[in-house]
């Protein structure tokens, strides 16, 4: 029971052999699997944390980009509206100016045509006068009439112009 004998050494050797056998064939591979899994889980958790942080960063970045884009779009719309308003105004002004010009041109043309017409009329009147004068002069060939005419003229002269001119 409590007598120690050679069994002690056999037991020591038996236990050491058991340790070696178990390590080599059983616990070694089993613990390897266990450690690999522990490492893998730790890695996965770390990876997941990293991914989440990265995703949050990307989200922030995209939101920033989106708000920038929105702002930019607003700017573009605003500037387009402004430009179109300015263009509209300019077009209206231009049109008004054109109308003014056309009016002025029309007025000038009217004036010129009137003057032309007046000039033409004047010419025609001269011609008509000349023709009338010629006709009258042709009738002058009649001596008697001529005589009467001249006599009238002289008479009028004598009465109105000559005055006290003695003939």
């Amino acid at each position, binding site marked *: 029971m409590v007598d120690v004998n050679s*069994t002690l050494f056999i037991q020591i050797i038996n236990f050491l052999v058991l340790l070696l056998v*178990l390590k080599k064939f059983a616990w070694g*591979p089993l613990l390897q699997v266990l450690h690999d899994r522990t490492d893998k889980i730790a890695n996965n958790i770390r990876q997941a944390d990293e991914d989440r942080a990265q995703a949050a960063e990307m989200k922030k970045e995209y939101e920033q980009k989106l708000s920038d884009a929105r702002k930019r779009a607003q700017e573009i719309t605003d500037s387009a509206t402004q430009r179109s308003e300015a263009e509209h105004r300019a077009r209206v002004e231009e049109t008004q100016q054109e109308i003014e010009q056309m009016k002025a041109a029309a007025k000038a043309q009217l004036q010129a045509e009137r003057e032309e017409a007046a000039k033409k009329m004047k010419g025609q009147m001269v011609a008509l006068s000349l023709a009338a004068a010629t006709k009258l002069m042709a009738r002058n060939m009649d001596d008697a009439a001529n005589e009467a005419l001249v006599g009238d003229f002289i008479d009028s002269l004598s009465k109105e112009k000559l005055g006290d001119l003695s003939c």
Partner: protein
Amino acid sequence: MEKIGHREVVEFAGYLLNEETLIMNYITMAIVILIAILASRNLKEVPTGWQNAIEAIAEVWEEKIHTMIGPTGRSLTHIFLSLFVYLVIANWLGLFPAMESPTNDLNTTLGLALTMSCFIHHGIGVARSGIGYFKHFLEPFAPFIIIHIIEELARPASLAFRLFGNILAGEVLIIIILNLAPWYANWAPHVVWVIFSLAVGVIQAYIFTTLSLVYIAPAAKGHDHEE
């Protein structure tokens, strides 16, 4: 009654051997190896069955080792796992009829205690710190070597006698209970005591393994030999 704890001694090539202890020891080893085969055959990433059970035990020890030694102790897990599984099976074996625990023989427990607290302990110390490991016997100053030597002797002795006493007492009590009460009444205390002994078997295995770890931890940590 007179057979409790008694060992048939056989002489083999001039050496005295306890035949029954050795036979029970080989049966224990066979069972442990069988469990090991069941646990480590087709290892899966997601463990089931025996693999799961052994991994649960391994993780208990790995966590303890991690606390006491640190990450470098990982390579020692298999020693404590083997010791614990071996002790649990050995302690339980005596609860079967007509069987006795190999651990109710001082030869076995002293052999285990010496293996753990001397060979593996100082072996790891030398492996980690070289021959300078033995300097710690002279710390804090030379006369302390006496105290250190007493400590080195007391440790395996206390480990061995604690386990031996507990297991032997448990088995003695089983036989006493069976003989003390008449046959129609003895089964009730017997069942209670066997259930209690199952727990004692695990607890003693746990204590033995934990104390071995406590002794080995300072040597395994390397340069720090304070205890």
